[in-house]
Structure formats: structure tokens, C-alpha cells
């Protein structure tokens, strides 16, 4: 059951699709995990976590983009979320990623975030993207750098407080010859 008009994107191992009812419980479980979700913005209770799920759906309806659910092609499980985030008060549209418990260390976040970034550049027409990372979130900083992003400045985030802003390479830097992030040319259906 679709809750948004999000497109369906594919990578080698993943499907990126809009949030669906079956993602509610995995998303709530993640947001209630105070350690794992600390860099993302953990929810203090189930009610707030549910609300985040609903407002991501609303984000898609307002902006036409938002966080995709990352689905594993092999098992159909929801492994995390990645997408473009831009609530009021955000410095700029952000490329974000989160991988749920049990799906870490497999390069899933990088594969998903690279695909979401390509979607933002090639389908939505974005010309630049940022990622907001709380200081000390070394795993996210490492991934941002693997994605080619660089530290630009520190700022006060309306929700997260003191925050680091990373800038991603633009579409011209990434897709000069219309090639994929993995280097292979992809045909468009």
C-alpha cells in the first residue's frame, strides 16, 4: 500500500521506495533506540516515533521528496532509510541515511545514499546537496567522506543543536559522462 507518490529506485542489492505501513514498526524501533538514533534525533516515546513516520509521509506530499525506505532485494526486509530532507528551518536540502540494527557494515547506507543523491540530481534537478552530521558521529562522517562530501562549516541546527554541515559534490562532478556511481552506464527505462 502506497502512502506517497515516491518512485521506485534500484541498486544492485537494494530497492528504494516510499514509506509503507510495513515500515512503521522497524522505523519506530529505530527511533526509540536512544543510542543508535542519537545522531538522527531519537524519539522519547512511541507516540513521537509514530509521528515521525507520519510526518515523513507528509514531507513527501509537501515537497515531492523525502526519506525512502531501503528494502533488501534478497529478503524484502526494511534495512533503513535514505533520502532528501528539507523541513522548514533546515539550512538546505539534506541527503540523509540511517541503517537499522542488523544491517550495518555491509555498505548498504553508501549504496542507498549514492542512489538517492543521483535521483536528487538527475530526476529532481538539485544542483547541490548537504549532509548535517552531529559532532562525534564518526561513522556518518566517514560515510559522507566516502561519498565524496567535505566539511564546510559548523552551525546551530534548529532541532539537533550544534551541527556539522558537509557539502556533496555536485551533479557535474559526479555524472560527467552520464555514468553510474559504480562507473557503469545505465540505460533509462
Amino acid at each position, binding site marked *: 500500500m502506497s*502512502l*506517497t507518490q515516491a518512485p521506485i529506485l534500484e541498486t544492485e542489492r537494494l530497492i528504494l521506495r516510499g514509506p509503507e505501513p510495513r515500515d512503521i514498526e522497524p522505523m519506530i524501533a529505530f527511533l526509540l533506540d536512544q543510542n543508535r538514533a542519537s545522531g538522527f534525533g531519537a524519539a522519547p516515546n*512511541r507516540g513521537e516515533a509514530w*509521528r515521525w513516520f*507520519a*510526518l515523513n509521509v507528509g*514531507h513527501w*506530499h*509537501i515537497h515531492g521528496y523525502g526519506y525512502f525506505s531501503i528494502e533488501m532485494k534478497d529478503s524484502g526486509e526494511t534495512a533503513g532509510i535514505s533520502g532528501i530532507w528539507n523541513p522548514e*528551518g533546515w539550512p538546505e536540502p539534506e541527503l540523509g541515511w540511517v541503517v537499522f540494527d542488523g544491517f550495518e557494515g555491509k555498505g548498504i547506507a553508501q549504496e542507498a545514499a549514492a542512489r538517492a543523491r543521483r535521483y536528487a540530481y538527475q530526476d529532481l534537478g538539485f544542483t547541490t546537496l548537504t549532509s548535517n552530521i552531529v559532532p562525534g558521529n564518526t561513522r556518518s562522517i566517514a560515510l559522507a567522506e566516502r561519498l565524496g562530501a567535505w566539511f564546510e562549516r559548523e552551525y546551530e541546527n534548529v532541532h539537533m543543536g550544534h551541527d556539522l554541515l558537509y557539502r556533496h559534490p555536485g551533479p557535474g562532478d559526479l555524472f560527467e559522462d552520464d555514468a553510474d556511481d559504480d562507473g557503469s552506464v545505465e540505460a533509462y527505462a
Partner: protein
Amino acid sequence: MSLTSIPTIETRRLVLRGPTPEDYPDFKATFSSYRSRFMGGPLNKYEAWMLYAAEIGHWQVRGFGMWMIHDKISETTLGMAGGWFPAAWPEREIAWIIWPDKAGHGYALEATHAARRYFYTQQGWDGAVSYIDPKNLDSIRLAERLGAIKDKDATTIDGNDAVYRHPSPERLKSGQIADGIELEINHYCDPLFKPKGMPLD
């Protein structure tokens, strides 16, 4: 795509439509003001936007939600009314808020009466409650005008709210409550006693 298409409801003076991105500034104005103090506000711009996104998402996740209340003729927004059932809520709620400069015209009564009837007749609800801050006397008064009665035994959201239980579809059908509400709405639409002009002297 099986997106929930939000129904439109018309009443004598109002049109209830799904909340759209265009209506957000009106929502933000009220939720960043003192008017929203009984609904978790006042909110900063980030919180207001996130709540509005949740209002829209709620329709898709639950299949019902809060409508934007418009004046039928001018299309101006007046407030919101409808159903609200996030995860922390013990029961489905009927809720309303009117923009501060639009209060006093019976819009909340007219919109909420229509929304409740829609849930009862079109969505099969067998009842509903409203969670109200005990200091929010205007909302308590409106709940009572809608025929809701304080339910001291019902589970609250967090202990800081009073639960008002709406009349069941059966009780609402039996006449007296609905007749009273409609009489009051009609009086707002077409007051019985109007000033007949300034006295000449």
C-alpha cells in the same frame, strides 16, 4: 497508487478539504501563537512544519485526519477539525482548532459536527473522545455543546488532559442532541435577533 484521497465535506457556511502545502502559512501563524498553548504550542517554525507534515501524513497512514476548514464563499481558511489518532492516543479523537481571529462564529461547532457525522456514517466509527486541557474552557464548552460528556474513567494521553466522550452514533441519531446543535448552527448562520439599524433621535 492507492493514496487516500481526502473527501470534501460541505456544510451551510463551510467547506472542509484536506490540508495542502498552500494552507501551511495559516496553520503556522496559529501554531506559533499563544492560541496553540493547549495543543503543545507555541511551536517554532521547525516544529510547526513538522506537525503540519504529520497532519498530512496522518491521512495516509490512518485513512482519516484533520480537515482544513474553509469559508465556502471566500475560501479563506478558518481552522482545522477532524480525527486524530497518533500512536500514543488511547482512542480515536475528534479535534478542532479555530484561528484566533476567526473565533466566535460557531465555525468549530459546524465543522466538528460535520466531521463527526462523516466518521460515524461513512467510516463506521462507534464513538470517539476529545482530549482537552482542563484549562481550555472554550474547548470544554464546545465539547459539551457537541453533546460530549466528561469521562472520568477513560484513559488519558498523559494525565494532563480530560477525556470528553462523544455521544454514540445511536444517541446522536435519536434527535435531541443533533437538533440542538443544528439549531445553534442555524442561529449562527441566520441570527434570530439582528439589530435593525441605528435608532434615530
